[in-house]
């Protein structure tokens, strides 16, 4: 299969990206991929880490910049992570966060990026056992609520009541932990 960019070399990298809500396929040779500064989720280790994301993020920046321009001549490009000092501009150049607090600091700009790369914006996977207790409980409550309404639909009221009690005790536990 030929590289879609140069049409000369054979394509060795195959992946998709979501652009304007649509899945777009990419079939590139390594040199074209490198030239484009392409970022290829799922494909590790082909290049040195730096500059991979810059194309993608600069695009993102210019879009949101356009929206902000009406209100502010110098928009949130200068937002800085209070912990590590990385600015959003730097992040968009190198494509890497400096520390875990960067996620919080750049929060309002990350959803479009996550949606483009992953198609989603929130985590549904594993939770740390020791420190992720609250989230685990909340997920269990969600699950139990669904169970409960199914029971009620099936008129299994005794079982539904048992589940309700379980939900209550979990909610008390959550309240007890504060927050």
């Amino acid at each position, binding site marked *: 299969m030929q590289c879609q960019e140069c049409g000369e070399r054979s394509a060795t990298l195959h992946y998709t990206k979501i652009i304007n809500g649509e899945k777009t396929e990419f079939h590139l040779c390594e040199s074209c991929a490198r030239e484009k500064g392409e970022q290829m989720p799922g494909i590790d280790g082909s290049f040195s880490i730096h500059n991979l994301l810059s194309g993608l993020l600069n695009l993102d920046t210019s879009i949101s910049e356009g929206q902000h321009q009406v209100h502010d001549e110098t928009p949130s490009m200068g937002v800085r992570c209070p912990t590590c000092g990385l600015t959003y501009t730097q992040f968009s150049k190198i494509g890497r966060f400096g520390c875990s607090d960067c996620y919080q600091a750049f929060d309002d700009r990350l959803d479009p990026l996550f949606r483009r790369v992953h198609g989603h914006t929130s985590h549904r996977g594993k939770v*740390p056992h020791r420190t992720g207790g609250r989230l685990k409980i909340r997920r269990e409550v969600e699950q139990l609520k669904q169970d409960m309404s199914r029971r009620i639909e099936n008129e299994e009221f005794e079982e539904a009541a048992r589940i309700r009690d379980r939900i209550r005790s979990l909610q008390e536990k959550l309240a007890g932990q504060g927050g």
Partner: protein
Amino acid sequence: MSLKRFTEHALSEWMRGKGPQSDIVISSRVRVARNLSGLPFPMLATSAQSSQVVRRVEEALYAAKELPVLKEAELIRMDDLSELEKRVLVEKHLISPQLAEESRHGAVVLSKDEAISIMINEEDHIRIQVLYPGFQPQEAWRIANQLDDWFEKHLTYAFSEQTGYLTSCPTNVGTGIRASVMVHLPALAITKQLSRLFPAITQVGLAVRGIYGEGSEALGNLYQVSNQVTLGQREEEIIDKLASVVKQMIQHEQSARRRLAEGTPIQLEDRLYRSYGVLSQARVISTKEAMERLSDLRLGIDMGILSDIDANVMNELIVMTQPGFLQQYAQERLDSQERDIRRAVMIRERLHHEGTEDEQ
């Protein structure tokens, strides 16, 4: 040292090729990225902070030695290795080039069978990797998950309820999981079906990469299929999707092989025998030619056309004929011309001691 003895010490478990569907699937890998809470990611960490990461992982590892899989594991610091030793670890897929070349206070924890390698201070503080021969992504995830649970007892990870495990690169955030399967697809390549297959694979959210290419080519019909998405799906969903797509690729490759066998076998037979001839007689051979011929050899073995050759020669030789390995075996630096000569010698020896194995 004889090649046989060298091989016994040099091969990782995954290169021995004794896994499910190993006629098509070379290896399955699951990698999990994690960072420690309260410390900047390696890119911005100070030297003291990076060495603190190593120390903390080392302490956790000490406790984790209760885990059977890590019983005889060893922590190796990049600073203690020569360039050549690092290169060999890269060629065996145990560490990344980045850890070898760019990391500060980089280290790796290696299990005895080399199925587990935990990179420290690569792009993320911790990258747990499990690499198995053949088609077993689920089993690789099971072990990686277990190791992750174990480390989490002793280390506090950077985690947010909304975004999951926080990673240096936004393409890894959420589950931090990257699962990949290395497949050998010679029949689909010969019958020119890859250009139909790859778009279908990318459409379901997986990425494909030709590997062992020098520059722009994919050599030896070896491809790596991996998940693109790490956020918004559960780990099991990610692994199961990859597994089910690879299963279909295996079926396509199998049916392409069956059709090849039914079609015009003499041309194919000729090509495979010629490749065997080249590998067993050549005096100078480039990586490119070696990879292509080894792919033919493997196809010939798997289709039952070439007999009395261990199917594993490809798995072993694709790694052992890489530059670092050749130099390690030669115990000296070699330029590329010398490597082509040594490569031919190594392949001949390996194919030769196939036939005489019983006598040794």
